[in-house]
């Protein structure tokens, strides 16, 4: 991947994180985890290493976009692990919507589960119903958006190599 492409993808992840913050500021709830959707897309397109890298960058974006997370780097590590796992679920050839949704379920479930565990460890209240709705929403949005991400990636490849 060229530096410019890397930068563009990072910018997209940051944009997703900013969008999440802006939607939350407008009291839109629940919001699908757009960062997880992007991570799933790239992990299924390019494999575990790219998935982990995307997760790392996306998690750092979530940690740093104001107001930020109270622990810097925790989201980054969790998303990287989830991206790595999602990359392992990649198959050669066309990917069905069911596989995309399933992968998004795994990724979203992992990152939400980490957040729930962290909340439980400091005895903070946890709204499990909303967490479940968010995970399902993320999986649904992933099934719709990931084909667009993959199509864009494919267009980039086609333009570069003919």
């Amino acid at each position, binding site marked *: 991947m060229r530096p410019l492409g890397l930068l563009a993808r990072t910018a997209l992840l940051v944009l997703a994180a900013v969008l999440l913050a*802006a939607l939350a500021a*407008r009291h839109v709830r629940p919001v699908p985890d757009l960062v997880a959707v992007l991570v799933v897309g790239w992990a299924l397109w390019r494999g575990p290493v790219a998935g982990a890298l995307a997760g*790392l960058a996306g998690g750092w974006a979530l940690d740093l976009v104001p107001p930020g997370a109270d622990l810097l*780097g925790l989201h980054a590590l969790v998303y990287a692990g989830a991206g790595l796992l999602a990359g392992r679920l990649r198959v050669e050839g066309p990917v069905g919507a069911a596989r995309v949704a399933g992968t998004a379920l795994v990724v979203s479930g992992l990152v939400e589960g980490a957040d729930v565990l962290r909340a439980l460890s400091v005895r903070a209240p946890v709204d499990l119903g909303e967490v479940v709705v968010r995970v399902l929403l993320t999986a649904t949005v992933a099934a719709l958006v990931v084909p667009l991400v993959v199509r864009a990636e494919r267009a980039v490849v086609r333009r570069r190599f003919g």
Partner: protein
Amino acid sequence: MTRDRHRRPRGRRVVAGLAVATALVLALDLSGAVDTSPVRGLAAAGLGPLERAVGPREDKAARLRAENTRLTTRLADTEQRLAAAERADALLDTPTLRGLTLVAARVVGVGPSGPAGPERVTLDVGARDGVQTDRAVVTADGLVGRVVAVGPWTCDVLLLGGREVAVGVRVGPRGVLGEVSAAAPAGAPAPKPGTLALAPVTGGALATGDTVTTLGSPGDQPFPAGLVVGTVTAVDDARGRPTAGGVVTPAVAPATLDVVGVVLGERRAQPRPSATAGG
């Protein structure tokens, strides 16, 4: 494909290195050894404008909400001041406090809780307001405690129920002499949290519901006579002891203290006039 194979290990190394660096940052942030606020500051400086651009705009509803918040806080502030003024008035109108010189004060700090609740509070009056140590602190309901330390603008009060506070009292209409303190007399069961132990000097004659008032101290220091301390809520049997003790529920709950008065009364300088009886 060959290119891919060449590239893959390097990519894996880069990702692993980044993940390790992230874990390091996380550990430093968790341990608190390093101040991470510059990183957050940089992120806020870089991403804040973007967030402001896509964030909700200020519209009429937002302006009205802000106005509403401002008015609500102002109303709450005014109400609180009014309530404080009312409480101060009630304090000065209390019959048992008639004739005493008081300075009104607010509780501005509460010390760490002892085994039975807070034991010390700080008031916003001090030596500049004429407060000295060993002065009684009262509310309209009754005695709160006594001043133990005075600063120029604040003073510290040891509350009734603190370990070192003992008050000489009279109990009931007959005025039985006794002593109220947080510690139970030898042999008696310890009082429950929030209550005080009453040890009468002479035997018997305690009844549930009796009002407990202060006996008074020389020169009204620390306690003037006749201040309400609380009510007798239980009398224990005198089995094995010379006198029956009791349990006093204080008239003032320390948890709700707000406006209090510090008794300032001067020590008596004039001799008391004598009078002829039966004349």
